[in-house]
């Protein structure tokens, strides 16, 4: 049996956009550690052609990247095996949310980072707030960009430290104009999407609030372990314990519902469940595409560390509410149906039924987030 080593410590430098100085800060910290005598290497570094940043690399040991060929194109990825062989005390890894080229051993860079941590190596990494899974819909709503490279929130929650790398949008826009962030062509495109002043300010606020949440949850976790006299009393935590149930279906709105429910659960420090209620005898009775959609949503929930089940009941709403009562759920999350039943229609929707049956608990109907232009077009 292999010897167990204590897991390495993970530190995340959180920013709100490209160019705020995350990579630079990561290298600064690597230098500072080196000065203190820590054996530190750079496992992966994304230069983006930024002169200041590249200059900071001097004097640091860099692990050569792995060359990967995919469909005739060469890509470079972090060489995790080489990092493990070199086995430093600390490894700097840029772009935590990166998705590896297909055919790599692991799909995501954060999974590579976990392997490195498991080997007892500390990691410093960088991340932008818009890559957090739970913020995906919100970010899309105000940037119009659907961020594809997402990272489950629990991965960030498990980090030992989250530090914000802050820069006012004005200063960032100046950098962008001076060409310090992107090439001129890319800068113009960027300026039309993420790099509007109001969008940047909103992303920045999200990053600051997210970091405050991370600080708070670590603090409360510490407090729970600490002897009572140390406890300074974060008032809200001691109150009622919430328990949330998310009603999953084949409806594509389920993904946003799961994200929203989980985010609320995280803020309220509540337990979170997801359930799909099936009215047939067997899941195999479902139409293939429906079944695929349900499986996809349940897997998505599991990836976010939500306990997920399939329940069987003749009546969907009743099955859901029975499960909720049995498990002392305080709040049920359901998606607002796309097509609304007409006023006074005799057969009510599942949502209406849940609201009617669960009169002893809270029911949250989550509306689809739409872009303003889209909302306008649809009246």
């Amino acid at each position, binding site marked *: 049996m292999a010897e167990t080593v204590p897991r390495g410590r993970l530190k995340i430098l959180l920013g709100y956009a490209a160019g705020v100085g995350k990579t630079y800060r990561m290298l600064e910290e690597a230098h500072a550690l080196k000065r203190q005598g820590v054996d530190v290497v750079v496992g992966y570094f994304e230069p983006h052609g930024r002169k200041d940043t590249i200059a900071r690399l001097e004097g640091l040991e860099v692990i050569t990247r792995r060359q990967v060929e995919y469909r005739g194109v060469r890509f470079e990825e972090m060489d995790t095996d080489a990092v493990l062989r070199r086995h430093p005390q600390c490894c700097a890894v840029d772009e935590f949310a990166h998705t590896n080229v297909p055919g790599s051993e692991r799909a995501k860079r954060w999974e590579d980072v976990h392997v490195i941590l498991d080997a007892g190596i500390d990691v410093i990494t960088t991340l932008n707030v818009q890559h957090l899974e739970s913020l995906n819909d919100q970010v899309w709503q105000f940037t119009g960009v659907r961020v594809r490279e997402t990272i489950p929130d629990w991965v960030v929650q498990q980090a030992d430290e989250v530090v914000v790398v802050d820069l006012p949008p004005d200063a960032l826009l100046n950098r962008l104009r001076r060409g310090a962030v992107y090439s001129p062509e890319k800068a113009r495109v960027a300026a039309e999407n993420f790099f509007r002043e109001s969008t940047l300010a909103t992303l920045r606020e*999200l990053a600051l609030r997210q970091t405050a949440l991370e600080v708070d949850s670590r603090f409360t976790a510490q407090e729970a372990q600490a002897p009572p006299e140390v406890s300074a009393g974060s008032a809200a935590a001691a*109150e009622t314990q919430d328990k949330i149930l998310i009603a999953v279906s084949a409806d594509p709105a389920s993904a946003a519902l799961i994200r929203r429910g989980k985010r609320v659960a995280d803020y309220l420090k509540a337990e979170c469940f997801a359930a799909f209620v099936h009215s047939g005898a067997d899941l195999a009775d479902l139409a293939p595409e429906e079944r695929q959609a349900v499986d996809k949503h349940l897997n998505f929930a599991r990836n976010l560390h939500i306990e997920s089940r399939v329940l069987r009941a003749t009546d969907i709403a009743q099955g859901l509410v029975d499960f909720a009562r049995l498990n002392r759920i305080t709040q049920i999350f359901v998606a607002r149906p796309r097509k609304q039943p007409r006023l006074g229609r005799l057969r009510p929707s599942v949502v209406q039924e849940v609201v009617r049956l669960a009169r002893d608990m809270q*029911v949250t109907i989550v509306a689809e987030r739409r872009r303003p232009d889209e909302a306008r077009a649809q009246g």
Partner: protein
Amino acid sequence: MASSLMRRPDPDELLRKVQAQEERERRGKLKVFLGYASGVGKSIRMLDEGRRRRERGEDVVVGATQLEATPEVKARLEKLEVISLRLVDGSPVMDVEAILERHPQVCLVDGLAHDNPAGSLNPHRWQDVEQLLEAGISVITTVNLQYIEEERERVAQIRGREVKESVPRAFLTRAEEIEVVDASPEACLDSEEEGGAAESDRQRRQQQLSQLRELALLLAADVVDRQLERYLQEHGIAQVWSAQERFLVWVTGESDAALMLASGRRNSLRFHGELIVVYIDRPDRSPVERDALQRNLDLARSAGATLEGLDGEDAVATVLAFARRRGVTQIFVAHGSHSDWWDRIFGGRVDRLIRDANGMDVRVFPH
């Protein structure tokens, strides 16, 4: 902007905008580095920014520094022009007159919360800074969270001691730029002490620092939110999304609102979001309902919530229009007292709210 709704500004608004713009161009710009403790590196960041601006051709001087400079700070000061502090009764005071006479483009002022001794030009350093800004000199400064007037009490609760000096929060909110200097509490602890401290002390201090850090981050987020609001207003943009959660509790005379109000309060605390309580203010209701509503409103008031009385023929539409205007993200509502069959035939208040609440979550509470 594709993601926002444009609206036509009225003439008064236009005039206000022009005046605000002129005022801003005349005044110097204020930039604040905000930290949650000493040792996070505020001074260094300020001096580095001064050096960068100087390299870019701006005329930069140092107006005030900490008396005891670390070697890192000293090395940076050597590369900048420094206007020495004056000593008044043995206390260091920024030499405002000398700076005004020298009239640089940018002045670096460490320790914004510093108090001047009696007989100085101004009692507080932030007033000195105000004077520089008025004269058209831009200022880059540093401040520690514990000196923000409105945060002092909470900080004192955490730290167990209170500081005398303070800077009003409004002064920070008016800054053109605020930048958080963040570091992990461990890093601060290392700079605070040279080892030696007992492990339990260290743990307690670390928890204090975590709490302070959270406050600083939230304060900065609020300032950013305020700035964003101002920016949108000045550019005539009605933004329909926000990074902040806003909870709206709709109180009626039909059901007891205690649970809903308690939950609204707890949620707004946890999310650090805004809590708004609304009710429909109409004369045409029964005395029983009127009394019940009054009880609920008293309850809301005693919980310290902001109350908004709305008036409209169609209650659901009125509440939704208000919610949209205020950027609400979640509406809390309680089941009504009508029976199921009534709601099914006529379409209940809750049903209609759910149906029409585009883009907002609706949380339905037990009756």
